[in-house]
């Protein structure tokens, strides 16, 4: 009886251990610009971490989604490795030079989005260190070094989230981070019977400088 139990335990270990190894993962992606509305759906200078360890990149000297955003010097880089033995890592970055959103409503001359995740036997963690915005101007006013998830209203347009940081994972076996340096949420007013504004509905998104990383162990 005890031998049978022992055999079952060994069999279970044989099944579980390889699954544990396979379960380790590292994922990363980055892009320079994304615009999504009812009529436009574009993602430019985009790159995704290839399966297995590796580095991948994409670049454009300039990019434009007419009426929404123009940008120069776009680079997207991802690098990482899912390694169950020595620890997994994923690092993603998107960098841009001069950017112009909504015909000058928002401008900046240097955008860095960086997301980093790592995990080993000691635990998993993610951060957005290295992200920055240079010479950001919104509606004619300079905004310096915005704190994570800074929200500013854009009358007639919607609102903008600056240095948007979206952590993910359970913090024990999985961890991830998404960084969107400029995220404009386009909104339209909802009108009541008397023409009064009763609310707003989202009709689109513009993201400039996005990096995402995650690991599991």
């Amino acid at each position: 009886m005890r031998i049978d139990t022992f055999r079952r335990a060994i069999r279970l270990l044989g099944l579980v251990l390889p699954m544990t190894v396979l379960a380790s993962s590292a994922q990363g992606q980055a892009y320079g610009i994304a615009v999504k509305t009812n009529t436009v759906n574009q993602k430019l200078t985009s790159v995704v971490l290839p399966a297995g360890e590796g580095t991948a990149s994409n670049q454009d000297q300039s990019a434009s989604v007419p009426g929404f955003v123009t940008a120069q010097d776009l680079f997207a880089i991802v690098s990482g490795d899912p390694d169950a033995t020595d620890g997994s890592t994923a690092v993603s970055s998107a960098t841009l030079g001069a950017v112009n959103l909504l015909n000058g409503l928002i401008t900046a001359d240097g955008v860095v989005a960086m997301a980093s995740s790592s995990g080993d036997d000691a635990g998993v963690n993610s951060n957005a260190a290295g992200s920055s915005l240079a010479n950001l101007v919104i509606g004619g006013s300079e905004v310096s070094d915005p704190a994570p998830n800074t929200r500013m209203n854009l009358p007639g347009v919607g609102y903008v989230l600056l240095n948007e940081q979206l952590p993910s994972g359970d913090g024990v076996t999985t961890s991830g981070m998404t960084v969107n340096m400029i995220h404009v949420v386009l909104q339209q007013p909802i009108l009541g019977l008397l023409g009064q504004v009763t609310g707003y509905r989202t009709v689109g998104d513009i993201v400039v400088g996005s990096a995402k990383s995650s690991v599991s162990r």
Partner: protein
Amino acid sequence: MVRLRSLGLLVAPIGVALVAWSCDRQPNALAPTIGTPLAHFNEFQCTPLKITGGGRIDYPPGSAEKNPPASHLYETFGAHVMDDGDCSPEKGSLEWVDHRPEWRINGQPLNLHSTAITFAEEAVDTDCSDGAAHWGGTLRVQNTGEEAEFEVFDCDNGEPGVGHDGFAIRVPAIGYEVMCPDPDLPPAEPACTLTGGNRQFHPTHR
């Protein structure tokens, strides 16, 4: 059955010995010397290794603090290398962008893209707690199409990578280097401390 067991007893120690031998450190690194000797990263050995990740450096000065964003004094990169212990890597890649205004070439930030990784060796005389490597090969300057040799000094100094890990690069043929040979700076010369990202050293086979 007894014969099989005897055979197993005979073969098992040989297998263990072979694995141990394959993981043994082998001296005599084969890396070419393309620069002058440095304060650290002087002692190397051929051993199985893998180092991956990417990041940001704010050079100059290359310390753990970010420069003001408007200065554009920063570099971003992704890089990995994998070697099975003969100092001749099986895989590897480097992507490097220098955003400094003085390094704009042909209207774009300096962009270096590796075309071949020809050597990788573990550096055993550094302060990098989790491991360090010296590796390199040839790259293409994307702005001009020029090919050049390069070397990097790669340091995993614990978690998180920001403020701890380090990276440095030298491309002598185009007079370019991002190196921080200041003995007062962590983690170890000549690597510049990351202001974002992470380097992960994988001591494969250990």
